[in-house]
């Protein structure tokens, strides 16, 4: 049962008033259309004169294109045209994926299609335009390419060696970016430490596997010189800006529409060459062009994530107090840094976030990011968090075990205390409004650790390996302009909302935040109805259309509720004030004596009010009845971004219990617990679904998911049968509970909740497995933790 009083936020008004919707688990009517097959996804769209496309892609990880002959392919049935880089580049300017505020990043220019050299298996070389996708695919077979294979640079660990192939000659070596963070005197503090523990962890590449693959329909209308883009992306205004810039179109003449999106998880917030090529083809042909990736394209061209090797060291004193932490992280990002966010941010998050729940006075972190001939790597759900949380929490467990402390006790004495915020991460990033102590205490209580320990002992007597893990973590949410904007990226940290009363008394809301299943529609409606004083059924919402919504960043980095929600709240309050002003004139009473509730302006003393329907009719249709000079505004628009700090952090504590099968190496997660503090919960049911879904993706990273490459850079498992993701039968029981510390940066007080599960699950699962293996004095250090790795660790194979 959800305790509504937990969601009480005095800044929002009493939960007992009419139309109190914030904090309640209302049904999400946005989901209903999906349940009758009525979702509107990109591939469902058919436009007049629309043509389809398919790409010839590099079969090699690294190869020179000596020549391409398209003349036979052009004659294939249904083929309308075939474009190479030289054609596409006439309408699309290149881009570079670098930011300026984090030290020197080096990545070459990229164009939609490869020019002379293909640098990863799957890179687009030519776009075939045909009446149907099947016809385009048939024609691809007839394109003749004279390939000269080049030696690929696959291994990130040898990327910077002297004799390694350099992917971009002009850069001199394969280094993309490196950064060192240093606070205090790490060397001295390690000398003063009575105990030092070390760990080296590996995190495989994995990818998002959105069930709906990437897709776009680009429609260049020559007569209006207008580009309409139907895109299953997360950030329509960002795409509008980028398309305007690179296709030399006035921004007002680019419209990006992103309706239903079948999963995004950060995969669909980047600029992809194939999508840009489809836009270019539409501009050249003057007709709508559709591109929807197939599953193979999805595996080899959607961004990958993780791919880290990290070493860490933690020094503690004899009481278990942390004195010093040092980490060294290496990551491989494919041949280019993605645009416009860059492929540096995952490593940057590792450097920023490691050790973040704790007081660690001396901290050093070095990150090195190198190029490889593999699919580009970039930001995916919980960017960098799994690595930062795992290295921290693995070291903390090791330190506890080495000095004979309980894993919960060592955490408790090192947490930044809940009453000592604002504070900073060991790396120096500002933190505020967090609750590691409260969340851990609640976690330990609901887990009932003593009982779990008893069971573990009994299991061990029977030869069953059971383990328990706990972790604490910070989650980056609600980034401010100090995240991307400061580095020169045109990524809006602001979001906007507009709200208006319509002639029937209905309320229309539009927001720059988009929906990919998180429940954006539901929470925006709840905020608007709650703050305006109307029933939920009066609200209609428009999202995902740059022609129809205020400008803003969109949905990424768990920012929809905290930033976009605050904009809706502000707009609703302004509209309310506007309504009350005109109502006071109509009702001939002081504004302080009236309020809005249940779709009417009411007199606080109980006298006769006026319905919003009647008020709207009066304003819109019978304005002559209103005192002259009033000219009411029944519309309000507001915007919001976070000021003063880089991020609004969320925190969580997680626990899990696993059983490791010694004979098969199979791991069973018996139970998983999450205590989340995301501030005000607008709809607790949706928060919990975000947490659970996040945990499940975290389980995928921890136990199953890996993009396997051979030594020539060929992806070996680019099908859903070979790339394993968690399915219904792998789901543990996930118990979710909350501590609520509202963010002081907004009235709403909401932080983000979308990524904690994915960020924390890999660490807590690793700790639980290593706890299970501790009776054998064994450990695992590489994710995904496959049965094979377990059997190797315990010496069975």
């Amino acid at each position, binding site marked *: 049962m959800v305790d509504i009083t937990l969601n009480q936020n005095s800044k929002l008004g009493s939960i007992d008033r009419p139309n109190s919707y914030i904090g309640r688990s209302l049904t999400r009517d946005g*989901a209903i259309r999906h*349940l*009758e097959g009525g*979702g509107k996804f990109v591939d469902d769209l058919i436009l007049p004169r629309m043509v389809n496309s398919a790409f010839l892609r590099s079969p090699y990880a690294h190869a020179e294109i000596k020549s391409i002959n398209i003349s036979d392919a052009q004659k294939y049935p249904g083929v309308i045209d075939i474009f190479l880089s030289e054609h596409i580049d006439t309408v699309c300017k290149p881009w570079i994926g670098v930011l300026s505020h984090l030290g020197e990043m080096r990545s070459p220019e990229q164009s939609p299609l490869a020019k002379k050299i293909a640098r990863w298996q799957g890179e687009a070389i030519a776009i075939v335009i045909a009446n149907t996708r099947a016809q385009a695919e048939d024609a691809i077979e007839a394109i003749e390419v004279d390939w000269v294979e080049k030696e690929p640079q696959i291994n990130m660990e040898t990327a910077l060696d002297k004799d390694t192939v350099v992917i971009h000659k002009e850069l001199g070596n394969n280094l993309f970016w490196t950064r060192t963070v240093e606070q205090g005197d790490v060397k001295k503090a390690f000398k003063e430490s009575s105990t030092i523990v070390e760990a080296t962890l590996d995190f495989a590449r994995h990818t998002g596997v959105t*069930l709906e693959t990437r897709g776009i329909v680009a429609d260049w209308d020559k007569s209006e010189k207008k580009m309409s883009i139907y895109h299953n992306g997360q950030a329509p205004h960002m795409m509008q800006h980028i398309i305007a810039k690179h296709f030399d179109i006035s921004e007002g003449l680019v419209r990006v529409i992103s309706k239903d999106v079948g999963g995004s998880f950060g995969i669909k917030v980047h600029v992809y060459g194939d999508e840009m090529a489809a836009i270019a083809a539409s501009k050249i042909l003057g007709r709508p062009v559709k591109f929807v990736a197939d599953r193979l394209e999805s595996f080899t061209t959607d961004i990958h994530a993780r791919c880290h090797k990290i070493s860490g060291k933690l020094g503690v004193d004899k009481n278990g107090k942390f004195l010093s932490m040092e980490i060294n992280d290496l990551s491989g990002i494919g041949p280019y840094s993605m645009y416009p966010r860059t492929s540096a941010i995952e490593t940057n998050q590792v450097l920023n976030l490691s050790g973040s729940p704790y007081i660690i006075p001396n901290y050093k972190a070095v990150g090195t990011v190198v190029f490889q001939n593999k699919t580009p790597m970039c930001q995916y759900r919980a960017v960098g968090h799994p690595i930062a949380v795992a290295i921290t929490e693995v070291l903390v467990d090791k330190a506890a075990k080495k000095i004979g402390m309980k894993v919960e006790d060592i955490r408790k004495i090192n947490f930044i205390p809940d009453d000592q915020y604002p504070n900073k991460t060991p790396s120096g990033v500002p933190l505020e409004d967090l609750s590691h102590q409260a969340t851990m205490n609640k976690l330990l209580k609901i887990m009932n650790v003593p009982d779990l320990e008893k069971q573990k002992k009994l299991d061990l007597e029977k030869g069953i390996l059971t383990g328990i893990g706990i972790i604490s973590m910070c989650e980056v949410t609600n980034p401010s302009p100090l995240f991307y904007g400061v580095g020169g990226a045109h990524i809006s940290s602001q979001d906007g909302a507009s709200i208006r009363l319509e002639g029937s008394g209905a309320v229309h809301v539009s927001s720059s935040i988009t929906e990919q299943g998180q429940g954006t529609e539901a929470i925006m409606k709840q905020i608007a109805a709650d703050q305006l004083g109307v029933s939920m059924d009066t609200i209609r919402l428009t999202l995902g259309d740059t022609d129809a919504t205020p400008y803003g960043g969109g949905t990424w980095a768990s920012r929809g509720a905290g930033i976009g929600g605050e904009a809706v709240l502000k707009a609703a309050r302004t509209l309310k004030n506007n309504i009350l002003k005109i109502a006071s004139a109509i009702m001939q009473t002081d504004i302080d004596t009236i309020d809005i509730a249940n779709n009417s302006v009411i007199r606080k003393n109980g006298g006769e009010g006026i319905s919003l329907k009647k008020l709207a009719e009066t304003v819109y249709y019978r304005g002559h009845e209103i005192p002259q000079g009033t000219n009411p505004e029944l519309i309000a628009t507001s915007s919001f971004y976070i000021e003063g700090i880089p991020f609004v952090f969320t925190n969580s504590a997680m626990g899990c219990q696993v059983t490791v099968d010694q004979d098969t190496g199979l791991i069973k997660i018996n139970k998983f617990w999450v205590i989340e503090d995301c501030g005000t919960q607008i709809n*607790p049911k949706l928060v919990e679904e975000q947490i*659970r879904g996040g945990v499940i993706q975290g389980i995928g990273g921890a136990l199953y998911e890996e993009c396997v490459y051979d030594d020539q850079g060929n992806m070996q498992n680019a099908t859903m049968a070979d790339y394993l*993701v968690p399915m*219904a039968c792998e789901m543990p029981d996930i118990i979710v509970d909350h501590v609520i510390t509202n963010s002081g940066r907004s009235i709403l007080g909401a932080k983000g909740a979308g990524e904690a599960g994915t960020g924390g699950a890999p660490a807590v699962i690793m700790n639980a497995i290593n706890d299970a293996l501790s009776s054998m004095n064994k450990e695992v250090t590489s994710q995904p933790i496959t049965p094979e790795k377990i059997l190797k660790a315990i010496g069975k194979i």
Partner: protein
Amino acid sequence: MSNEVKCKLKINGLVYNLSIPSDTPLIFVIRNNLNLKGTKLGCGLEQCGSCTLLVDGKKTLSCNQNAIDFEGKEITTIEGLEVNNKYSLLQEAFIEFNSAQCGYCSSGIIMSLTSLFNEKNIPTENDIVKSLENNLCRCGSHHSVLKAVEKVISILSNEKVENQYE
């Protein structure tokens, strides 16, 4: 390229006379020829369950089997589940428990579960998990899907299940 053939399909109670290439997978006829967009393509290799529909009441993957092989059978897509403008019990329960996030897997999951309830009035937990073994939900909505199924079972067995959010 393959030959165009005549094909007669019965979908959601209506009979369609089509002329299609003989190797056209059923899903493309449903989505592209008939414009029934509720059935989703996820992988094209029968590995994700998005394209699940009912053939003679039983769940069937439509992305890799030729449409012409379904002549003479009763095909039901998600659009055919509503009867007299009323949602099925499963659809109602999915709405109540928010058993969909992005919604791309939803029609496949509903069709798999509809098939299960066609076979067994009161399925066991094992039956339910097994019936979903081919349906990927990448958003991880399985927990709420199972809650919805529990609700349907409780209605069918005339019991009340508590909605924890009420």
